[in-house]
């Protein structure tokens, strides 16, 4: 077992041929992102225009019903909306008016497209424009699609953020925008680190409130905290902003390299960088080391889920000493994940898309020590004697930056430790 980070000498996985699969995909649709986005954006309401299935998904995907003041709901299409008896737009206007009158605290309303609304070609973009005119300036209405036919799981957040880029104000200021929904506590940590590096003009996107939406322009640079933000990346680039490419800020190494890339962009001197990062780096290393004892030398297999698979595999391989067998991801955005792929030594299968039955065959034959997969697969795989980490926890738990590095490693080590703890044999 090595002590330090396991940085490969050879070239990484960036040029590994990708196994592309097109079969049954066992993944969530983009509506799922609403579960965390509605908590992050405190004056926003997410109105899905869809079916009973959409409402049921939101209720089920949360794992428990989040009964604390849901700022989301589903306008369920009924037979008469489809048969053209009712003008769906009139119905929508009525529901939105009712909703906004009951919730005067709402400043931004997202009309979220679903599979049925896309298939019947209900023009929610037009509806959003119309409703913005009606409810301005109190409420801004924006449309994006979280439909399963267009988005997979975390792509819902991407679509939501990309839809907000066109309404950002213009600025010529030299500013850093940190992009990707983070828990407030993590956001505050990141802000403190960046401020300590002397980077003062930092904003976060998505913003906690509508008023705090970042402005953007040719002097804006942005750094992504999540690998699934391809469309947002493209939209920001179109507005003239420039992306700072880096590994994603998971673990000690990922966070340091992410901060280093930002620091380089802002000309932070090395001494200051070392001074600011030394203590949290040491803490993160120490916290990871505790879990590394459990994880090192063990193998891991990723089913596609959140698009976090590549950076997480990078973390587990580099910093926890694990051996990746397959890294499956719903969509591989090489431009964004390239820096992480570079750090993963060649060896694992990199797969994109899914044919779930074939992939289950591969997983069972590879017999990994740990399988990272969705909720639908976890218990069935446990029953076949594979240890699993269900992936949705990775998007519902604070895992970014130094202070969460140990928690992140802990999410993977816990199933392994647990299986060592449990004994059901007779004492003899």
């Amino acid at each position, binding site marked *: 077992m090595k002590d330090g980070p396991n940085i490969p000498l050879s070239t990484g996985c960036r040029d590994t041929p990708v196994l592309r699969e097109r*079969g*049954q*995909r*066992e*993944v*969530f*649709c*983009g*509506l*799922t992102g609403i579960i965390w986005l509605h908590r992050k954006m405190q004056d926003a309401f997410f*109105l899905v*225009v869809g*079916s*009973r*299935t959409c*409402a*049921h*998904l939101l*209720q*089920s995907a949360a*794992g*428990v*019903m989040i*009964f*604390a*003041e*849901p700022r989301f*709901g*589903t*306008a369920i299409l*009924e037979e008469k909306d*489809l048969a053209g008896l009712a003008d769906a737009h009139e*119905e*929508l206007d009525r*529901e939105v008016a009712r*909703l906004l009158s*009951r*919730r*005067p*605290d709402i400043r931004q309303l997202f009309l979220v497209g679903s*599979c*049925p609304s*896309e*298939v*019947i070609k209900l023009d929610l973009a037009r509806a959003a424009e119309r409703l913005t005119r009606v409810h301005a300036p109190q409420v801004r209405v924006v449309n994006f699609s979280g*439909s*399963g*036919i*267009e988005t*997979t799981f975390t792509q819902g957040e991407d679509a939501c953020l990309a839809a907000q880029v066109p309404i950002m104000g213009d600025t010529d200021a030299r500013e850093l925008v940190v992009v990707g929904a983070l828990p407030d506590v993590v956001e505050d940590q990141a802000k403190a680190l960046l401020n300590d590096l002397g980077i003062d003009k930092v904003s976060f996107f998505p913003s906690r409130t509508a008023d705090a939406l970042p402005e953007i322009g040719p002097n804006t640079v942005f750094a992504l905290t999540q690998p699934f933000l391809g469309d947002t990346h493209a939209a920001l680039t179109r507005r003239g902003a420039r992306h700072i490419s880096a590994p994603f800020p998971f673990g000690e190494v990922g966070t340091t390299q992410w901060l280093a890339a930002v620091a380089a962009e802002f000309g932070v001197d090395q001494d200051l960088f070392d001074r600011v990062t030394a203590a949290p780096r040491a803490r993160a290393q120490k916290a990871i080391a505790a879990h590394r004892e459990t994880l090192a030398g063990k193998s891991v297999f990723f089913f596609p889920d959140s698009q976090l698979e590549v950076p997480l595999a990078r973390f587990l391989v580099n910093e926890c000493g694990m051996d990746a067998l397959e890294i499956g991801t719903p969509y591989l955005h090489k431009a964004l994940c390239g820096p992480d792929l570079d750090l993963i030594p060649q060896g694992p299968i990199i797969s994109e898309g899914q044919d779930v*039955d074939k992939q289950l065959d591969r997983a069972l034959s590879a017999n990994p020590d740990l399988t990272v997969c*969705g*909720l*639908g*697969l*976890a*218990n*069935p795989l*446990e*029953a076949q004697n594979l240890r699993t980490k269900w992936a949705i926890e990775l998007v519902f738990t604070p895992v970014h930056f130094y202070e969460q590095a140990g928690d992140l490693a802990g999410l993977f080590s816990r199933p392994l430790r647990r299986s060592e703890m449990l004994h059901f044999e007779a004492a003899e």
Partner: protein
Amino acid sequence: MKLTVWTYEGPPHVGAMRVATGMKDLHYVLHAPQGDTYADLLFTMIERRDHRPPVTFTTFQARDLGSDTASLFKDACLDAYERFKPEAIIVGASCTAELIQDDPGGLAETMGLPIPVIPLELPSYQRKENFGCDETFFQIVRHLAQPQEKTPHLTANILGPTGLGFRHRDDVTEITGLLEELGVTVNVAAPMGASPVEIARLPAAHFNVLLYPETAEAAARWLERNHDQPYTKTVPIGVGATQDFIAEIRTLAGLEGRSDISRLRLPWYAKSVDSTYLTGKRVFIFGDATHVKAAARIARDEMGFEVCGLGCYNREFARDIRALGREFGVDALITDDYLEVEAAIMEAAPEMILGTQMERHIGKRLGIGCAVISAPVHVQDFPARYSPQMGWEGANVIFDTWVHPLVMGLEEHLLHMFREDFEFHDDAGASHHGGHPGPRVEGGQPPVGDADSPRDISGSMEAGVPVVQTDGSIVWEEAAERELKKIPFFVRGKAKRNTEAFAVERGMSEISIETLYEAKAHFAR
């Protein structure tokens, strides 16, 4: 269009999944977009199943819509047949696939698979989960049941249990045992646990035991018409209902078999003096119609509660539940909008709720105890221990479950006596529920919710039970208000409401301590 936050029932194809997942050697090929696979986790996580549901989703995407989703479906069908080798396949569409009109049933029939292929028509924009169960099971039975001789010995089928059902697993065990005591052998229990080959053998039984009308009534009716199998009308939940059920079985079977009631404890527990405090507890009952009907009878006749409100979310049974409401002297609430249910519960101010997981959350917000009696279910509704709702053991389980949320008998008296004690005060809640009583806040904690309450999305609703009336019509004198706060939390809402009604009736504009006790005497029961 209807704005919905939480739903009591999923879409109808989830009902079909519950039937398929309960069965063996059956496969469901579901034309559905990616994302609809979320439904798998209901079974693998909530019910802790160790197998994936036997469902192949076509998971079409936007790019497929322009090309050929029909051949995608046929490929999925063929792959599923070859990989899983089921005895029969059911095929259908989810809400989105229904819109693209590929006709999965028609497509599958043309494929010439060497096993029965059963098409399902489940209108996603009109119907819901329970209908999906009922219709799917009906179609499976209609396609597979074979005419045959009745068994030489007396047999019955058990109809209705599905995957993800509220205590279905244990109800089947309990009722199978009860039937055996009475001299009736179970031929097939279905859909849960049955294979298509066993479904074919359904008509061999002499009659059917319909456990859950929600999920199997259509099949029971069809079997009665086409295979000369009468079915039971009583659902054996509760002591009285189980006795009625036994009487029904004796008639159907022409038997005099007896059931051993030595392990039935509910009647004695309800009679024992410790239960005196249960007398007249006001309960609000909401859930699926079958469980609500059973619960109302148990609540009144076997626990000595007062039913102060009831209703169900499945409209198919609206007429039955309205009739039940008339029998109990309350207006039945038929709705699948949980905000309406919450409003009705606030209005009725019950001392306990018998409901679903949704009402459990409502109760949590309102500070009212709740026992779960019906689906929708959550992981805790699949306990590791044996805990049926039906038969004698079911009655025992119900007694324990319903008493648990309440403050215990002697404790209730002590709370009345020492309600101003700074540690042992009523806001601390029932002692066996853990939680550490905080010091008493002057005036007590508000009886309702917190800042996070979803009442925020229904601002028009009355916010809890304000201690001082603000609409100007009636004013509580300060002393009366203080006295009101001394009344234990679980009856404070009712006392306030009664006192105000009493005052209004008499044209009073102010409420004094005197008025409070006048009203108490007036409403004394």
